[in-house]
């Protein structure tokens, strides 16, 4: 063979084309946030500009969208995400995400960020400990069931993606009426494929709000954005970059004025 086979994949895979290079995506850091740097890196690889936002500040610094990254905000001591919900920065985000106009701030909550979104009532339901009580860390296949949100517009309908799942409190719960509404309105955005990893109702891995600008998901797309660091896939070990489409999607949505 004349071509050299890389050990862990092509580390220089070009990111998807950048429809709005320079879109400013805020990444919030709470005390106990772990994945803010990874989220910022994902924003950059997706073609945006990552803007660090501090939980105690009150200025959104004119960002076009916000990511609430994973971790254990305030140690999760009360409930996962419960104290972060009262941070000054969250008050600003809640206001901007529920603005009456069509210019609602796109917000993505990943893992602990998803928990913060439910505690903030930006998304319905809640999270409890994984059914089998184990902390999970694995590559997880998801089906993308809603491509109309600000964060999923560049996926194809029912596309299967693989991103890492790592959590303690990942079991999604909601009352039967809420679950029925989520299903009827197509607001289940991501669903677990294969064995339900944590006992989530209806295999729900991610949902959106009624206006499609707020999305929460339990697995971690920001850890699957660069060959060499993502899940294993058909092209090689650790070369999966399925998560990048989340970040290119929001930039495309902003460019199109869709949200």
């Amino acid at each position: 063979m004349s071509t050299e086979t890389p050990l862990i994949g092509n580390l220089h895979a070009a990111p998807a084309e950048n429809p709005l290079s320079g879109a400013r995506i805020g990444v919030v850091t709470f005390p106990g946030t772990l994945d803010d740097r990874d989220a910022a890196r994902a924003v950059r690889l997706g073609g945006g500009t990552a803007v660090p936002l501090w939980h105690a500040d009150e200025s959104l610094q004119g960002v076009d969208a916000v990511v609430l990254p994973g971790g254990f905000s305030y140690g999760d001591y009360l409930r996962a995400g419960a104290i972060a919900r009262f941070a000054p920065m969250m008050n600003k985000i809640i206001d901007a995400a529920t603005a009456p106009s069509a210019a609602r701030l796109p917000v993505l909550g990943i893992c602990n960020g998803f928990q913060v979104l439910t505690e903030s009532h930006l998304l319905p339901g809640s999270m409890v400990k994984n059914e089998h009580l184990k902390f999970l860390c694995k590559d997880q296949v998801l089906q993308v069931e809603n491509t109309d949100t600000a964060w999923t517009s560049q996926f194809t309908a029912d596309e299967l993606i693989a991103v890492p799942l790592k959590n303690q409190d990942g079991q999604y719960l909601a009352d039967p009426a809420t679950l029925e509404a989520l299903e009827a309105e197509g607001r289940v955005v991501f669903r677990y494929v294969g064995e339900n990893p944590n006992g989530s109702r209806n295999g729900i891995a991610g949902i959106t709000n009624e206006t499609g600008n707020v999305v929460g998901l339990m697995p971690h797309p920001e850890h699957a954005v660069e060959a060499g660091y993502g899940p294993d896939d058909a092209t090689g070990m650790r070369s999966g970059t399925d998560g990048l489409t989340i970040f290119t999607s929001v930039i495309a949505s902003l460019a199109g004025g869709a949200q």
Partner: protein
Amino acid sequence: MPRIIVEVMPKPEILDPQGKAIASALPHLGFTGFSGVRQGRRFELTVDGEVTEQVLASARTAATEMLSNPVIEDVISVRVDDEDAA
């Protein structure tokens, strides 16, 4: 100083994984008379001064809006601690 006790429990219809884990461990230690365990939380709110009706009302609001999540938990009681504060 007087204290207000807030007790929060997971809703009955929601599986309580922590309680389930404890229930399954009890027989290993020889405690065989118990068919189930549910684990909740007790909060002790210390009050500087008298527990007025206003303070108690504030504690009730904190119990429902912050100390519990109504999707998964019920506030069982909000009461003044009637034992002498240790």
